[in-house]
């Protein structure tokens, strides 16, 4: 299965084009028109261009006519009928007629929704949807509805799914980079935030986020790895271990805002609104992820290795340190860095007591009040309506740049983690 389905499809497509029967041309044209329709619809949706209904009607009309021709061809040459094809052709022709009469807004208010379906959305989404389905059907028809046609039709739909997955993620990264990069300057990196976020830079936030990462590493990582070693290597498989494992599983899924509640009500009264409080609560947030990843990595080491070492007279700890830990370390490090990265990007656990600026530089993590890039971004966003147009634009620029810096810090951690895993992966 691994030898490259796409190259196979490509090769087959190329040899297929050379052997196209003249009678198959309509289905090939139908495929091209369908994909063009989907592409046009998608471009319109992405660029917010209102498509003329006539264009959509044209696409639907051409597709409908081609599918009718295909149906006739199937019947005349192969003496076969395809209900699917006929139904789809009729749908296309009906749609072509309906689209021209589409009102600007289809009201949904009588259904209880306070909104309407605009022509813009209806046409773009309709073109994408019917284009892709039509394309798949055209491929089926091209192969005379043999199984290979079904396969390639399905592949087209799946490829489109993958495209729809990657597109929004690419847009998110792209928008942050494009909008954030112009604001990155020496001044932005080295100055503190001023005048309600309209001036100055993000120094406090950068220092704060890095300090939080350091604190999580200091608190959560030793605790989590030690706990994982105990749970996996020392604790037997009894009732208590299962309860603990279940608790870790449940806590891993607990929403970050619940940790915020806990920090606000328990840690803050004791430690104040300091970095220590933030580091503690984010460590607790990261702990289940770290324990879980480390346990999984230790589980990957086969028992034969442990038994071999013990049989040679090594003690339990010597076995763990010399035999079990070294090969499982890449997995542990990857899990740890991913967990710390996820915790360090969290806003909800620290949002109730974070401030905008550091009181001094360098800050004292035990007493100084906490600040971070993510809470900066949230606060700037909350102030988006304040001031005149110039102030708003400047604040927005700052917000984009903060988002970019935060993205770079967190994604760098993730990339390092995955790099370690890919490079030192060992299978037993």
């Amino acid at each position: 299965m691994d030898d490259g389905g796409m190259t196979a499809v490509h090769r087959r497509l190329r040899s297929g084009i050379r052997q196209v029967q003249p009678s198959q041309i309509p289905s090939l044209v139908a495929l091209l028109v369908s994909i063009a329709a989907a592409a046009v619809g998608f471009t319109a949706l992405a660029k917010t261009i209102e498509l003329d209904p006539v264009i959509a009607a044209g696409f639907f009309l051409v597709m409908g006519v081609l599918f009718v021709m295909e149906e006739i061809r199937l019947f005349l040459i192969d003496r076969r009928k395809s209900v699917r094809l006929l139904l789809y052709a009729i749908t296309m022709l009906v749609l072509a007629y309906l689209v021209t009469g589409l009102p600007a807004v289809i009201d949904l208010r009588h259904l209880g929704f306070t909104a309407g379906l605009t022509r813009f959305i209806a046409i773009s989404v309709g073109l994408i949807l019917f284009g892709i389905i039509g394309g798949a059907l055209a491929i089926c028809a091209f192969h005379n509805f043999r199984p290979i046609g079904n396969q390639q039709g399905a592949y087209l739909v799946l490829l489109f799914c993958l495209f729809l997955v990657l597109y929004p993620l690419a847009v998110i990264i792209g928008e942050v980079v494009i909008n954030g990069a112009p604001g990155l300057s020496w001044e932005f990196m080295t100055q503190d935030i001023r005048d309600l976020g309209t001036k100055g830079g993000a120094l406090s936030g950068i220092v704060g986020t890095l300090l939080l990462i350091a604190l999580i590493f200091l608190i959560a990582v030793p605790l989590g790895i030690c706990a994982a070693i105990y749970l996996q290597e020392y604790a037997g498989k009894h009732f208590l271990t299962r309860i603990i494992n279940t608790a870790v599983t449940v806590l891993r899924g607990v929403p970050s805002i619940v940790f915020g509640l806990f920090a606000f009500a328990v840690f803050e009264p004791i430690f104040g609104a300091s970095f220590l409080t933030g580091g503690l609560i984010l460590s607790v947030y990261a702990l289940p992820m770290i324990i879980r990843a480390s346990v999984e990595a230790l589980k990957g080491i086969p028992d034969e290795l442990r038994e071999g070492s013990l049989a040679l007279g090594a003690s339990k700890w010597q076995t763990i340190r010399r035999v079990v830990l070294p090969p499982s370390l890449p997995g542990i490090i990857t899990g740890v860095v991913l967990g710390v990265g996820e915790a360090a990007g969290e806003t909800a656990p620290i949002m109730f007591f974070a401030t905008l600026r550091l009181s001094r530089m360098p800050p004292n993590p035990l007493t100084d009040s906490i600040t971070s890039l993510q809470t900066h971004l949230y606060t700037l966003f909350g102030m988006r309506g304040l001031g005149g147009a110039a102030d708003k634009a400047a604040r927005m620029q700052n917000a984009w740049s903060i988002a970019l810096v935060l993205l770079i810090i967190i994604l760098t951690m993730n990339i390092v983690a995955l790099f370690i895993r890919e490079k030192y992966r060992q299978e037993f």
Partner: protein
Amino acid sequence: MNPTLSRENVIKYILLAAASFSVFIIFLIFIYLFQKSIPAFQELGWSILSREYSPASDRYGLGGAIAGSLLVTAGALTISYPLGIGGGIFLSEIAPVWVRRMLKPIIEVLAGIPSVIYGFLGAVLLVPFAYNAFDMLQGQSYFAGGIILGVMTLPIIISISDDSLKAVPRDVKDASLALGATRWTTTKKITFPAASSGIFAAATLGVGKAIGETMAVLMIISATTNAPMPWFDFFQAGPTLTALIAGHMGESAPGVARSALFAAGVFLFLIVGTLAIITDIMQQRVIKKFRGR
């Protein structure tokens, strides 16, 4: 006493201390959350499930927020589940090796984008788009929130469905191909059913992430508005459990008002905890099925 042995014991007890401390904190959170929510459950009784939450008029119903959470999550999964599974099938069954090698790490890295960035982008880009495209009263809505949560859950769903499809042993697929089935028939009839519990785990994990997400929802849907009428009108803004806590915690008075927010936390906890356990069981089942253990 034997020095090696005593060192062994010291190390063992250090590790035990770390483990018990971690577990202690975990249980502390459980207990604290439940204990703090007791006053709300006692004083409000069943009215805690009513629709309206407004501290000004002493009403602390969480029903609207629960409906809101479910609405947003349903929207998110409607988008991300079919697309994620389709993408997962493409990655694991169809794409050439180099495409998979390139895309899988990228998708995993993208899973780590902080939620506040999703929220910011959603509020700046998606909310105006939704406002124009659907002729709404305001762009801030469960609808826009659901879309962003859908995008947020995509990387997890695609990654887990890809993993569970890859976990299906090769000989099972080969047997099907040897019988003359096409690759697509094999995927549809053999691989996909075999991986179904893993794919189900992807869904529960996605639900857990979507329902527990705070920042994106808080920034896209205004937190302090009342639940919409009728409750299923997802083109309006309204509370969700997470946004309700985030939006009201700062100024809540100690007493029932605060306790009600902890009760919201308990509801979240119960939903997500159940989902996490189901996911775990499902993933264990996949491993057991094919590793023969």
